[in-house]
């Protein structure tokens, strides 16, 4: 049956089974490929998006569970104050290598910063350890989050 979901401020209608993970609705149905597939089991964080501002793993979030919540993806996170600062810090600190996991990293970091303007190292560990980076950019992610926090 069709579902109406709110993505980056727009209502989108999708006709898929209700148990279809939001990840595939975004990527394959709506063509928003910035959100990435990594594991399908909420083990790597590549698919992280925001639901009403909270970071969720879209690979295990069924479309029928979204209801009227506002979904924000990497394509629009730069429109939020925290997301904008995080993206700038990512560029300033040259965080990115292959870049595939970075959409998810940026979504997790933006949610952290929005809720906690001055995170400690332990806060960063808690918020970011669900996001795997195979290129090992962790040192720079930590520095970039701290830079973004200082600029807030």
């Amino acid at each position, binding site marked *: 049956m069709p579902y109406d979901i709110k993505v980056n401020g727009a209502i989108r209608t999708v006709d898929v089974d209700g148990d279809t993970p939001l990840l595939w609705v975004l990527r394959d149905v709506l063509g928003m490929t910035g959100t990435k597939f990594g594991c399908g089991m909420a083990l790597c964080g590549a698919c992280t998006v925001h639901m009403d501002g909270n970071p969720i793993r879209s690979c295990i979030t069924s479309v029928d569970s979204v209801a009227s919540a506002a979904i924000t993806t990497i394509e629009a996170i730069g429109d939020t104050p925290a997301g904008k600062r995080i993206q700038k810090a990512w560029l300033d600190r040259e965080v990115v290598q292959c870049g595939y996991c970075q959409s998810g990293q940026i979504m997790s970091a933006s949610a952290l910063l929005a809720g906690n303007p001055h995170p400690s190292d332990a806060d960063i560990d808690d918020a970011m350890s669900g996001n795997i980076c195979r290129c*090992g950019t962790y040192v720079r992610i930590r520095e970039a989050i701290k830079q973004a926090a200082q600029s807030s």
Partner: protein
Amino acid sequence: MILDHPASSTAGAASSSRKGLSRRTLLQASAAAGGGLMLRLSLPLPGREAEATNAGSFAPNAFIRIGGEGQIVLTMPYVEMGQGTYTSIPMLIAEELEVDLSQVRLEHAPPDEKLYANPLLGVQATGNSNAIRAAWQPLRQAGAAARTMLIAAAAKQWNVDPASCRAQRGEVRHEPTGRSARYGDLAADAARLPVPANVALKRPQDFKLIGTPAKRLDTPMKVNGTAVYGIDVRPPGVKIATLAQSPVFGGRVKSVDDAAAKTVKGVRQIVRLDDAVAVVADHMGAAKKGLAALKIEWDDGPHAKLSTRDIAVELEQATLKPGAVAQNIGDTANAMAQAATRVEATYQVPFLAHATMEPMNCTVHVRKDGCEIWVGTQAVARVQAAAAKTAGLPLDKVTVHNHLIGGGFGRRLEADGAIRAVQIAQQVDGPVKVVWTREEDIQHDMYRPYWLDRLSAGLDAKGMPVAWNNRFAGSSVIARWLPPGFKNGLDPDSTEGAIDLVYALPNFHVEYVRVEPPGIPTAFWRSVGPSHNVFVTESFMDELAAAAKQDAVAYRRALLDKTPRAKAVLELAAEKAGWGQPLPERVGRGVALQFVFATYMAQVAEVEVSKDGTVRVRRVVCAVDCGTAVNPDTVRAQIQSGVIFGITAALHGEITLKDGRVEQTNFDTYQMLRMNEAPAIEVHIVQNTEPPGGMGEAGTSCIVPAVTNAIFAATGKRLRKLPVDGAQLK
């Protein structure tokens, strides 16, 4: 948007850049970098003359195209997979072409072995940390030749001496008369000039870009979701497929019950192959749901009972018999007989999966008269050839669009994913994107080989090594991937890091026994041969220092009088790490030193071992001499990256077989290092103007023995088998 995705095929080879290359000459490269593969050193460089091309554009070689409108397009012969090559390669060209990085656009090179083969490999591929080594001379020459021609064109227009003109920021200027012309306005004239055979390259002291921490060109699109990886392509009408391959390598499909799968909303088609079944659907959610609903019976074939233990036993037995002699210095038998002390050890390293964050995928549209492929690959010509063979088409009917790579590490040097996708696409009407689940990606990888090494050494009365023997057994990836590279039982990759050591060892003997494991495919994996050789060599050197009751750094240092660059990085790393300063109980420092990929590197790891056996790497200090650091920030990034990759392998990495099946499935059973486990990493770069060495992999091979040597320092336990077994450290 700096990255263009041109239609790229051999079929479309009549493009402007190609015409000018028809009469190119093959020059002998003088850029012989140490280490790595050097199978062929001829490389395509400027032809005798460039031809006028459409719209007045100027394409003096296969790497540079300057349009009449002023656009400067650089075609990248090496692919970007995170290592920064789409910044460092443009830096080489831009340095000599005299343009700013902000002025260039990049294109992925199409498959074309003649134009874009890696001169150090002889094939069009990005691997073995040799892009910058391979590009160092030819791509600077490419830029210099183009600049020389643009200056000549301007000088001719103005009727002045070319020596009185200079190039700067995409313009030619004539200071005495104040005239200037943009490259675009000179393109048509420059295209009519002969390509100079010899051009002078800049002196290092005149570099403006090389040696600076230039910003990466691929970063902006990677922080806002607009970067297009292979998995992101969406040709019109594309369907999404996922698949189940025989859980035992070499097995076959016996039967498929697809009744339930066909009822899943969005499922369009079930494709049955000899050894795999695919579900084609409107989206990956439906494809995965359909796959789960399939009932597949497998014929497991000859490897149904295979276990990792069987393979280890075979390797162990193989090291009891002589192998091919990789290097012999002096007379180890005689030296062993006279040694005061003998030390013996056997080391083992496991199979490893690549686990790139972007799971394996490939999009294919098979038509009656051709085949179009979208993929991110380290070896685009290999993909084209494999697809042509699978589809039964001539090479020029296969178009390959290359893309950004979401992690390569050697996995995407292989064409197995493209072959599989073509097989599926042959049964599908229209384009189909084949996406592997993470479970398929880990269970049907092509793995870093299992290796087993048997070593012995003799020490003199002072404890210094007078004899070194090493015989190791394992798969030769080169023998399959690049057969001409395997000769007389040896290949340069399997032995790199085991021979040509930096240490003065008067009697030295290394043998390699090639053993191909049954029932599990092997492939290159970040840091390739050195991924085990450096672990083994640097662990054993540590054992010798311990047997001699000497400090691990001082012992190594005493053997380095003839290799000053190695000695310098060892001393630098030790000094910066505070080597010798006291540490708490169960905390230790370990050191490792290597010269591989033409780069000298030393690392000191500081490791804490809990009473329950948990190992935490707290701090890593790395000193590196990679010659000219083309982009020092990328050098730092690659070391940070390589260190994390290596610690992941040392602490967590192991692929095992049981009943012929890979036991690991996803990131719960094949674990990656995470933020909370990541150490502080310091990088110290030695400044010099030597030719550049490779940086993509060196950090990985060096950290592994640094960690296990630190564990020894912390606990007194010598670990000779990876990954680290915490149970032995309680």
